[in-house]
Structure formats: structure tokens, C-alpha cells
């Protein structure tokens, strides 16, 4: 936590104070100047930070009203009329803001508008943010009468107050003194920028009132309902909750719109009444529930853009993840493209889930289903990329293609490392045991005996045996499923296959079909 206070200007530094409002500006102010590029040869001076190799930055600090002198500008160091033509100078733009509604959380929101407002100024170019800022003042602007940076500062402050009325008082320090800039950048600006980034990582679904939708994919996935929450970035990997918020504010009719969260129906699965309502509207009634952090119950729809796909492997009762660039088949015998083809297009498919790489960083990562404790396999490249976000207890227990390429190899690996799925997953969020683990050999026999009878009695069983959580009718026929080969009723004589049905009272949670000989080998 960085303390917010007025910055002390050291003695002996050249300071010019310009209080009060300005009646008239020596330049035009209009949104039509946005994007104006002041070309080489056209600029009088260049100002800024890193791109010029100078200490410069922009920073907004929230202060109590009695510490802010409204509309005052303090110029530290050289002003515009003391600069050499075509020279480059470090520039720090520091704003103190005060207002009843202003808290530290609003600082970055206000700060990024500096770019928008400064670009309304004719003959002035502002680019980038934080310590990366780069500005140019046009020769034509100087010719027209621009003399002081205070004039730029006052115009910017006027725009801040007009456009963001919650700013009651604003004061600015514009400094071109490199020593001063460097000190403030290191001691104040960087700690504040870092704290803000940490805040982005830390903010959670509970802390906000609205999530954001994204419609960018709806042209090819019409029923896709993309919900971007603090704990669940978009599955294309591109859009975070902060991006959604920024976009929704700038363009309310654009691709990102607020979705009021509504009531929290299930905090663990991440189910909210507002999201459900929105999903029903947006998908034309196709989906009435969306749980943000669940793999098995009303999971998020998958558009087609997802960076990685998660797939459930009933044989090990665990989830694997493969990324778009992985060329081989996953242990379930399917390549990314086949799984993506089945899931994509805005569908809610149990057993498969498209996710963005950034979701692996989420503290609520599939928390309803055991989160990382349920993950058994990841393509190596993907695992390497997000290694730091895997809890240490699980890091070595998740196999890659180097450990296991097939389900049998995967089973061996999981037993060897004592993966939680083997003995049953206790989910971290509430300590509840959510899976029973792999059934012991003897028990399997017993269960199998019981299970075999009804299977024989009703030969048409296959259609009535949804291989939960995968539903056969949602699988395209051409899909290669070596490990799921369903026996046709006629080709399934007693003893030819063995059915293992677990948790049968809760409808059917799992069906394992395997050749009897294979079983005997063990």
C-alpha cells in the first residue's frame, strides 16, 4: 500500500506556479484531433518517458479535497519557451484529484483518460501510458501562440472536470526536471503501477456488481454467451474484466456490455441470476444457466476462439487440457481440432470446455470440480507456459505427453504420483469430497456383477446409457473414439464386455466399458 500525499518539490529546483482557470486557449480543442500524428519535421519538441530514453510518466493520485488546489499548475524545470527546437525532454504529468466518489481504485480509470483528453488538443500528440508516454508539440501550435506547458495542463484539467464530473478538484504538476522525475518515478509511480497490476490479479467476482459480455464471436457462434468476470477472462484469452469495463464505458453500443450480476445462486460454481437471465436472452432460450467455474454443470459456452480445450476422461475421472498448437492426439485419442469442432460454435457441451490461458491463473479455476486437483494431464508446452500458476502440491502430479500418451500410461502415472483422483478429490474451496476415487479391484468385480445383469436384459441399452458427462447424441458420428467403442447390441454377448457402473443412484455418473480380457490381465 503506497501512501498518497503531495509530492515534495526539492529546494533549488526551478518552479513556476500558475493558479486559476484560463479564459482562452491558444489552440483548438475537439475530438476531431484524436489520432493526430505529428510527423518528423513537424514537431517543435518531443516529450515523454521511455520511448525517448528519458525519465517521464503520467500519474493520477487521489487526495483529500483540502490538499488539492483546484486548477493550479506547477511547472518544474524548463517550460516550453525555454526548450530547444526539435529537442527531446523527459516529461512527468502528475495530477492530484479530489471528489466525494474518488478512491484509489478510480486513479487508473482517470489516468487513462489523460490520453483521450490530451489528444483533443490541436497540434499536440500523446501516445501510450505510464512511463511509456511519448508526446509531440507541433511547430504550428507554437506558431499559433502556445508558450507554456501550463496551457496544455489547464486544457487537460478543464476536460477532465467537464467529462468526469465526479472530479471536484484537480491540480497538476508538469515536470521536465529529469532528476525530480526519476526520483518520483522510482519512489512513487512504480510502486503505484505495480500495486494496480497486483490488484488486477487479486480482484474477484464477489467484489464487483457487474460482469461484461462479449459479442465479438457471435457472427459465427450465434448462441455463444461470453461472460467476462474478474475471475474468468474470456476464453479467447484476449479480454479481461478490466478490458470489458473500459470498452463498455467508451462504446456502450459496442461488443462489450455490462451484465448485472444479480443474485449469487451458487458461489462455488459461480452461478448468478443475472448471468442466467442474460444467457437465456442472448442464446435465444437455448441455455438458461451458465456456471462460471464449473466443468460439469451448465459450463460456459465455447465459441471457437478458445486457446485451450479441457476434456474429461471418465477412465481416470480427471480433466486434461490441450492447446491449439498441440499437433498430436491427447490421451483420450482425440486431437485439439476434433474436440474443438465438437465444442465450438457457442455450445454448452458436458465433458468439453474451451478456456483461455489466463483462466489458469484464476483463483476460482474450475473450483466446483476440484480445480487443479482434478487436472490430470496437460500438453507440455501449455503446462510450461502456466507452470507458476499451478499450486505446488499439484505441479508434479499433472502428466504431460512425456509422461503419458495413452490412457493406460496415464493411469500408471497417476497411481505412481498418487494423484488425488486416484483416491478421491477433496475440493479446496469448501473441503468437500467430490469424487470417490478409483474403485478398488474387488469392488469393481462386485459392481460389475450387478451391472451386467441389466445390461443383458435390455439389449437396446446403448442409447439409454449416456456416457456421462459426455452425451452420445452430441457427438458427430465420424468422430474417432477408440476408447469409447460402444458395443452394438448384437455384438455384445455376455462376457464379451464388462460394464462398470458407479454411483448409479445419482442417475449415471459414469460408465466404463472395457473388454473382459483386458480386465483379466491385471
Amino acid at each position: 500500500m503506497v501512501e498518497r500525499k503531495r509530492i515534495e518539490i526539492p529546494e533549488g529546483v526551478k518552479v513556476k506556479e500558475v493558479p486559476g482557470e484560463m479564459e482562452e486557449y491558444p489552440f483548438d480543442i475537439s475530438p476531431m484531433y484524436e489520432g493526430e500524428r505529428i510527423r518528423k519535421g513537424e514537431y517543435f519538441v518531443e516529450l515523454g518517458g521511455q520511448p525517448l530514453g528519458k525519465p517521464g510518466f503520467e500519474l493520477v493520485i487521489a487526495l483529500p479535497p483540502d490538499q488539492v488546489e483546484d486548477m493550479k499548475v506547477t511547472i518544474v524545470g524548463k517550460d516550453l519557451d525555454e526548450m530547444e527546437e526539435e529537442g527531446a525532454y523527459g516529461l512527468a504529468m502528475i495530477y492530484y484529484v479530489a471528489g466525494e466518489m474518488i478512491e484509489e481504485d478510480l486513479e487508473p480509470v482517470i489516468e487513462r483518460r489523460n490520453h483521450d483528453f490530451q489528444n483533443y488538443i490541436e497540434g499536440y500528440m500523446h501516445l501510450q501510458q505510464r512511463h511509456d508516454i511519448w508526446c509531440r508539440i507541433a511547430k504550428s501550435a507554437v506558431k499559433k501562440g502556445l508558450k507554456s506547458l501550463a496551457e496544455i495542463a489547464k486544457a487537460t484539467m478543464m476536460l477532465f472536470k467537464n467529462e468526469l464530473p465526479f472530479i471536484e478538484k484537480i491540480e497538476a504538476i508538469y515536470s521536465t526536471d529529469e532528476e525530480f522525475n526519476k526520483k518520483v518515478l522510482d519512489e512513487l509511480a512504480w510502486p503505484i503501477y505495480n500495486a494496480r497490476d497486483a490488484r488486477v490479479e487479486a480482484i474477484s467476482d464477489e467484489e464487483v456488481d457487474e460482469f461484461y459480455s462479449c459479442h465479438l464471436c457471435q457472427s459465427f457462434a450465434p448462441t455463444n454467451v461470453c461472460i467476462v468476470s474478474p475471475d474468468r477472462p474470456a476464453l479467447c484469452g484476449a479480454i479481461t474484466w478490466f478490458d470489458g469495463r473500459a470498452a463498455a464505458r467508451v462504446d456502450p453500443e459496442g461488443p462489450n456490455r455490462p451484465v448485472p450480476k444479480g443474485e449469487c445462486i451458487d458461489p462455488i460454481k459461480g452461478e448468478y441470476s443475472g448471468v442466467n437471465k442474460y444467457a437465456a436472452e442472448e442464446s435465444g432460450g437455448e441455455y438458461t444457466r451458465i456456471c462460471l467455474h464449473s466443468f460439469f454443470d451448465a459450463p460456459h459456452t465455447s465459441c471457437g476462439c478458445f486457446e485451450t480445450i479441457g476434456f474429461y476422461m471418465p477412465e481416470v475421472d480427471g480433466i486434461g487440457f490441450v492447446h491449439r498448437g498441440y499437433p498430436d492426439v491427447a490421451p483420450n485419442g482425440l486431437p485439439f481440432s476434433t474436440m474443438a469442432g465438437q465444442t465450438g460454435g457457442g455450445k454448452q457441451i458436458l465433458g468439453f470446455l474451451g478456456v483461455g490461458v489466463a483462466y489458469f491463473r484464476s483463483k476460482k479455476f474450475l473450483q466446483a470440480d476440484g480445480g487443479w486437483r482434478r487436472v490430470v494431464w496437460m500438453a507440455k508446452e501449455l503446462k510450461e507456459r502456466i507452470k507458476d500458476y499451478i499450486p505446488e502440491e499439484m505441479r508434479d502430479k499433472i502428466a504431460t505427453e512425456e509422461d503419458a500418451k495413452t490412457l493406460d500410461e496415464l493411469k500408471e502415472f497417476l497411481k505412481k504420483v498418487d494423484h488425488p483422483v486416484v483416491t478421491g478429490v477433496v475440493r479446496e474451496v469448501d473441503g468437500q469430497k467430490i469424487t470417490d476415487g478409483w474403485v478398488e479391484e474387488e469392488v469393481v468385480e462386485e459392481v460389475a456383477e450387478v451391472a451386467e445383469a441389466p445390461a443383458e436384459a435390455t439389449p437396446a441399452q446403448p442409447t439409454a446409457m449416456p456416457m456421462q458427462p459426455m452425451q452420445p447424441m452430441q457427438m458427430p458420428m465420424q468422430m474417432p473414439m477408440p476408447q469409447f467403442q460402444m458395443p452394438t447390441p448384437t455384438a455384445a454377448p455376455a462376457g464379451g464386455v464388462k460394464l462398470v457402473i458407479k454411483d448409479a443412484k445419482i442417475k449415471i455418473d459414469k460408465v466404463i466399458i472395457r473388454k473382459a480380457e483386458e480386465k483379466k490381465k491385471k
Partner: protein
Amino acid sequence: MVVVAVTGKGGTGKTVVSALLIHFISKVTTRVLAVDADPDSNLPDALGVANEVKKTLGDIREVFQVSRDDMGAMNKEQWLEGKIYTEAICECDSYDLLVMGRPEGEGCYCFANSLLRGVLRKLMRHYDYIIIDSEAGLEHFSRKTIDTADYIFVITDMSKKGLATAKRIKKMSKELKLDFKGIYLIGNRIMSKEAEEIIKKFADEEGIPLIGFLPYDEKIAELDMKGLPITYLPENSEFARKVKEIAELVVGASIKIN
């Protein structure tokens, strides 16, 4: 802002024409943006500024794709805009140059492209003239990375294929509703009256107004072979004078050469 796109079948000389148009138009105003929108083109070489191009728009889009998770509280649109303005736009003496570069890789580019469109739209409106060297597929227009163009110059040589491409471009621009104000034909490396007649007839039949013919110029072939910029072509050569006339049509004034 006047946007001119030069296109046509590969090898017909559109980069040569683009480079000379940029050369002449930037004598009138330096608020000129040259855009290389052909992944297989070499407009920077033709202009003699290849060494000054540091990054392409495609490079920056790739950096965006891989670093976007680590941007923290930074605004992604401002990040992208900043990178384009500082790294992708190459500041030459009398014009700016933007190379579109590599096509998209795997993965989803919806968000990146949606931001790019906004940034380019804001950038482009501040130039007086934008000259785009575009591949015949007009991909940047169909994807709306570049909003639209006022004039399309289709360059054709004497080959039947060159004309077929011109026809296809016209059809495509209609189908994709690209809203170009006008599509014009320019014949290049035309060496016989007979070829001129065929192209004239084609232009009439297809309703693509013909602007003129450019001659075969040995000097261009020589520069090409040596890998020298096309701007080395003497300004008083027949070829250069004819392109200058086209540039004058674009700017609506006569252009003085030194």
C-alpha cells in the same frame, strides 16, 4: 483524406506504380501515408527505405497476442496504438510508411483486429493522402482493417490473366460491398497497339475506366535486377512522367519536379 489503393495481379508492376505515386504526391504535401498491404510485396525496397522499417503491424499484433495476459491494469487499446505509432510507423523524410506484414497466425484475432481497426481509422483520417500497395485479394479491405478506399487503380500487363484479375477485383468489391468510389484500369508494360486495343475494349465492356498506358522501361527492369529503389528512375523518363500525370489526377493539381 484521399485513399488510393493500387492493386492487380502479381508481377504487373503495382509496387512500382505505388512507389512512384508516393514519390510524386509527397512533393505536394508531406502528410502522406504509404501502406504496404501485400505480404509478398516490397514497397519499402521500391522506395529505398527498407532499412528504416523496424516492425510491421503484423509483428506488433503477434506481440500483443502473447503479452496481453501480462498487461495488468494497462489499457490494451492504448498499448496497441502506442506500439503502432512508435514502432510500426516508419517516419521517412516526406511521408510515413506502414507495413502490414505477416498474416495472422493460429488462434483468435477478433479482439486484436477489433482494436486495430479503431486505431487505424483514427490514424488515417489525419493524412491528406494514403497510398496502399495491396495484393489482389484485397484482404485488408474485406476484413475492414483498412476501412475503405476512394480510388482503386488496377494495374494490368498485356496478359489475359492480368485482365481476368481486374474483372475479379471489380466483382469482389461489389460482393463485399467495399464502397470504393471508383475503380480504374492502368495498363503497364504495353508494347503494341494491338494490346492497347484489347485493353481498351476490355475496359469498355467491363465498365472499368481506363486511365492510361505505361510503357515498358528497360531502366525499371535494370533497377529491379540490381535491387535498387524505383525512385532512382529519372523523373523525366516517359514512365515516370506518365505516373506523375496519374498523381496529378489524384491531387487535382500539377506537380513540380525539381
